[in-house]
């Protein structure tokens, strides 16, 4: 975190000053390790084994926060008889189809759960890999996001056994499932000695409970894995068992990659969600608004109001044209026909099905996995638009990319027409950043952008204006969605910039008299409200830009509610009902946050209560109630249909209701935890340029892991072009342990070539004891550490690490492993076609090959 988020790390240092214990679990010894109380190096990609070990430790020693667990989680819920765990089926859950490499989740349901037609409709097909995208209508998008922020629908109130003794209750299933994750297994899989593991377990459990809380911070070290979703799930289980969710000082904090990556999922740039995590409708299933909202409208919890959120979104986009008679223009929304994720898009480009590409604020030729596939895709387009601050590699691949050097591509054969448009930087435009804490902070414009550089807002506004001008007068029905759009933002300044505050106000929404709304609870299903993103409703309350508030912390309470604005409802901690006990009293004086005031008959405290304001702790909802009315007084997890935190996920995940350790797609060792080597529901990407190194390959004996340095920014476009940053880390280097350097004859500050079955790159060698050799039983595992910032352009140049990385995807969110296997050898890499010969030789000797076409 100090390495990649040094500014955010100031709060960790402040916590340390107040006595917090800082533990850093990471294969690398980084700038975080320097100031941590304990650094625990583990083998890259074994996080589920490590976290699973902690879950086991908690359950085995009765260290869970039992009262919290019984009342606020689904530990007591009883699972149906058909469910079989990985303990029963040798590493697989029930419902697995080995042909399709997919699960049917039906048997994972709670006992007596109706075969929910809603859930059935939402999951009619099976998730499919990109290779199958030729028959899109049969396939599904990512399931987890498809269900929106409420999670999937389950029977509202499952059967419960609050003694937690029923053999099929979630708590007992959890105990059995994690029983094998002993400290010995952790040592064998992760290379973490038992005593180190137990030190972590002790620190964590001693700092959780009524009086104390612990927080987890993570970044792409957890998410960029073919089991990434389940890694986060394991942490969630652990934090829920320890009672560290919804309480001050607790939580699981995702450190996002850029300043507003959180914002770009809230107001999404993802293919499968609409603003506020409303799922994108599917072409085959959602022919009408009624069909679309029916799945959630009947459910319990706040997601039960999804119809109001959707209608208000449609009103914000299509204004007066959207009426009840025309379903508020629901048919204007684009529809999913299959996978449209980034790697699917690349495969489609390579195979000639995707002719155009807009690349904005991203540098896939350097920053995305399997750089060769990225560039082969770029080379097979009709047109490419790159909007960036500097001339990045994605815009110049056609003249100086690695494939030009190797002779695989020739500039004169590439038909892609490339448009480079200079973009305005964050100081040259105004707008908001949403950070990892869901906090919107307004940013003012400091200077006008230079030359032709323009903000993204202006670019899209102008693009829309020009397209609409071209379509003006069209009678083609297909053009109506564009022509009926509300596209009338006021402009200002010498460059006629659209007013970003007007956009924020539209996101916030207004009522039928045009006044700004103050809360998403005001949103209506009848078209009387418009709101561009329901979770942001309130950011423009009282006709004021709440995100621009900057009251210093010393002029307000500890929670500092008047600094910026946090979605939803300016609530700083989500699910904060859980900070009070079942009777509504604080768990302890020390961790007091939100509580029930019996005299006032409402929830009060430091923060905006995340609960129905006047719902008493002893409230029992009426039979058959829906939406927020169905929440009981002890149901803090108000977005879940049952109001409880899910230790076990009965539906909604593609690769199992509980996390299970599988090896990364490429690994030097056999899976010591379970029989299946890899995630059984993995999505393969069958492309000639994407061969996968075999398991336990002697040709590729080392683990590579890619990462960032403080001095550079992601794919380098914003740092390799600046002298003050370039001079701090001027050359691509590879970090190896002294033991590995000796084994391979690598010289400090000399050159090395790193090879996978995708490509080979060169780097200067940094021999350092910060890279730890890990012992797994009798075997040593060595990591090859690769900072991934370099490319061919800029003041400092170097080979791109992502050229080494293969693609095989997590089935929930379609993300790839950031770890894999490789070889490393002294000396620089060959130039020209000789590079291809080297890689081909490695492929032949290792037997590496692309996934079969029909694998997916």
């Amino acid at each position, binding site marked *: 975190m100090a390495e990649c988020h040094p500014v955010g790390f100031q709060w960790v240092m402040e916590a340390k000053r107040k006595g917090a214990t800082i533990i850093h679990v990471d294969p690398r010894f980084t700038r975080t390790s320097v100031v941590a109380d304990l*650094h625990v190096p583990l083998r890259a990609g074994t996080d589920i084994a490590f976290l699973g070990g902690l879950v086991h430790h908690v359950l085995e020693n009765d260290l869970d926060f039992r009262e919290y667990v019984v009342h606020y989680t689904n530990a007591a819920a009883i699972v149906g008889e058909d469910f079989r765990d990985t303990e029963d089926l040798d590493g697989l859950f029930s419902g697995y189809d080995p042909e399709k490499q997919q699960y049917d989740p039906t048997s994972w349901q709670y006992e007596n759960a109706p075969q929910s037609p809603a859930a059935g409709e939402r999951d009619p097909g099976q998730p499919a890999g990109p290779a199958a995208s030729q028959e899109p209508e049969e396939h599904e998008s990512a399931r987890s996001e498809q269900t929106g922020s409420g999670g999937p629908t389950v029977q509202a109130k499952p059967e419960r056994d609050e003694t937690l003794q029923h053999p099929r209750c979630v708590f007992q299933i959890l105990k059995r499932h994690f029983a094998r994750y002993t400290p010995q297994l952790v040592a064998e899989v992760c290379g973490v000695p038992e005593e*180190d593991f137990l030190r972590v377990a002790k620190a964590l459990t001693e700092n959780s409970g009524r009086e104390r809380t612990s927080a987890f911070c993570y970044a792409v070290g957890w998410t960029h894995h073919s089991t990434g979703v389940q890694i986060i799930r394991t942490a969630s289980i652990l934090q829920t068992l320890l009672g560290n969710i919804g309480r001050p000082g607790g939580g699981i904090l995702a450190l996002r990659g850029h300043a507003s990556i959180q914002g770009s999922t809230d107001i999404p740039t993802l293919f499968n969600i609409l603003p506020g995590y409303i799922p994108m409708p599917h072409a085959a299933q959602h022919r009408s608004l009624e069909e679309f909202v029916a799945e959630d409208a009947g459910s319990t919890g706040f997601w039960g109001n999804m119809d109001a959120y959707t209608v208000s979104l449609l009103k914000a986009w299509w204004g007066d044209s959207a009426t009840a008679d025309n379903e508020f223009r629901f048919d204007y929304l684009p529809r999913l026909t299959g996978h449209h994720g980034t790697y699917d898009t690349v495969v489609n480009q390579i195979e000639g099905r995707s002719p155009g590409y807009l690349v904005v604020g991203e540098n896939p030729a350097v920053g995305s996995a399997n750089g060769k596939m990225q560039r082969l895709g770029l080379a097979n387009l009709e047109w490419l638009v790159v909007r960036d601050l500097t001339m990045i590699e994605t815009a110049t691949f056609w003249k100086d990319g690695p494939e030009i050097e190797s002779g695989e591509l020739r500039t004169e054969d590439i038909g892609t027409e490339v448009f480079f448009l200079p973009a305005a930087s964050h100081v040259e435009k105004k707008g908001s950043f949403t950070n990892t804490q869901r906090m919107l902070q307004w940013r003012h414009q400091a200077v006008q952008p230079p030359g032709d550089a323009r903000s993204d807002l202006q670019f899209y506004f102008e693009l829309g204006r020009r397209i609409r001008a071209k379509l003006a007068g069209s009678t083609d029905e297909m053009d109506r969605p564009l022509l009926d759009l509300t596209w009338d933002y006021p402009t200002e300044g010498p460059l006629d910039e659209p007013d970003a505050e007007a956009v924020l106000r539209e996101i916030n929404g207004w009522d039928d008299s045009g006044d700004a709304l103050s809360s998403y609870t005001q949103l209506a299903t009848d078209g009387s409200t418009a709101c561009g993103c329901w979770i942001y409703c309130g950011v423009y309350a009282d006709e004021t830009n709440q995100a621009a508030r900057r009251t210093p912390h010393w002029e307000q309470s500890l929670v500092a509610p008047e600094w910026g604005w946090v979605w939803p409802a300016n609530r700083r901690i989500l699910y904060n009902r859980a900070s009070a006990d079942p009777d509504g009293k604080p768990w302890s004086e020390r961790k007091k946050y939100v509580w029930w005031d019996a005299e006032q008959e409402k929830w009060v405290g430091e923060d905006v209560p995340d609960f129905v304001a006047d719902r008493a702790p002893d409230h029992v909802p009426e039979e058959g109630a829906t939406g927020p009315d169905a929440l009981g007084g002890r149901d803090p997890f108000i977005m879940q249909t049952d109001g409880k935190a899910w230790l076990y996920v009965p539906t909604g995940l593609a690769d199992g209701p509980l996390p299970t350790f599988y090896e990364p797609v490429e690994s030097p060792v056999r899976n010591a935890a379970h029989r299946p080597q890899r995630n059984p529901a993995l999505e393969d990407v069958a492309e000639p340029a994407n061969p996968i190194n075999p398991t336990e390959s002697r040709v590729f004996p080392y683990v590579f892991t890619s990462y960032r340095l*403080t001095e550079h920014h992601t794919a380098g476009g914003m740092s390799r072009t600046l*002298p*003050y940053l370039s001079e701090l880390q*001027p050359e691509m280097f590879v970090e190896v342990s002294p033991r590995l350097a000796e084994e391979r004859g690598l010289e400090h500050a000399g050159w090395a070539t790193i090879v996978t079955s995708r490509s080979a790159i060169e780097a200067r060698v940094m021999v350092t004891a910060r890279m730890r050799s890990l012992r797994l039983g009798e075997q040593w595992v060595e990591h090859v550490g690769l900072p991934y910032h370099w490319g061919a352009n800029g003041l400092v140049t170097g080979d791109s690490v992502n050229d080494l990385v293969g693609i095989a995807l997590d089935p929930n969110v379609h993300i790839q492993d950031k770890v894999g296997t490789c070889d490393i050898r002294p000396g620089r890499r060959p130039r020209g076609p000789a590079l291809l010969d080297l890689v081909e030789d490695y492929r032949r000797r290792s037997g590496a090959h692309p996934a079969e076409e029909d694998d997916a």
Partner: protein
Amino acid sequence: MSSSLSGPLHDVAGDAGHEDHPPRMGFFTDTSVCIGCKACEVACKEWNLVPEDGLSLSGMSYDNTQALGASTWRHVAFVEQPTGRASRTDLGMPGIGPPGGAEPPAGPGQETDSGEGGVRWLMSSDVCKHCTHAACLDVCPTGSLFRTEFGTVVVQEDICNGCGYCVPACPYGVIDIRPGDGRAFKCTLCYDRIGEGMTPACAQACPTESIQYGELDELRERAGRRLGELQEQGVDGARLYGADPDDGVGGDGAFFLLLDEPEVYGLPPDPVVTTRDLGSMWRHVGAAALGLVGVGVASFIGRRR
């Protein structure tokens, strides 16, 4: 010229002729909380328009800056040390606290059964010390280097004639001549910011408060408390560097809390103002000159005879 060339000096600005001046300002750099982000280096260059200083990989851990110089006014050192065997460097030199090398420290970098020896990674942001007795200033023939009302030492680039006398005069090797330019440059403690009541750029940018700016007296007290805290926690290599008014430069305006011997960070263990003996040298020169005059006079007298 300053009337005092060495030893403790309470009113450094007053000594330089500033009447009715603000308190002496300085830096306390607490390396125990430095995370090596180098924001100080970048912020310094941005504010002071210091040029880029070379684009080559040093091979010295993450330290590609390598040293302070005319175009580097903040320098974050990265020192990798093996732990477990000898936890700290023992140079057999006088230092504060008990000799090192006893128990391996608990905490990061501890040795484990699974791997090789652990590692400790020291980070420290170095800067001009703004000495109480600044030799660079004493030797400057043009008055380009001067003592500010804040007690800091600043070089004025429009007056500097590039003679370079200041370069060997500095006991820390801080000030240097910029190649291709010919003039001397170094940290100004952001003279143009602090005069406006602002914090120097490096301290402003530091996310962990490793670099603290303030009144020197207050910083020294704060540093003493911090040292006590660390010693209480068993961090037995911790020591202050440059905080002592009795040291060879009369104490630094920019001082440090280090976790090991100064040499480990590339700092001189016992810096002495190189102009310490200037007074006695002049006295000797004066006596010698008088003697010469006497000889000359005597010879004239002799000739008359």
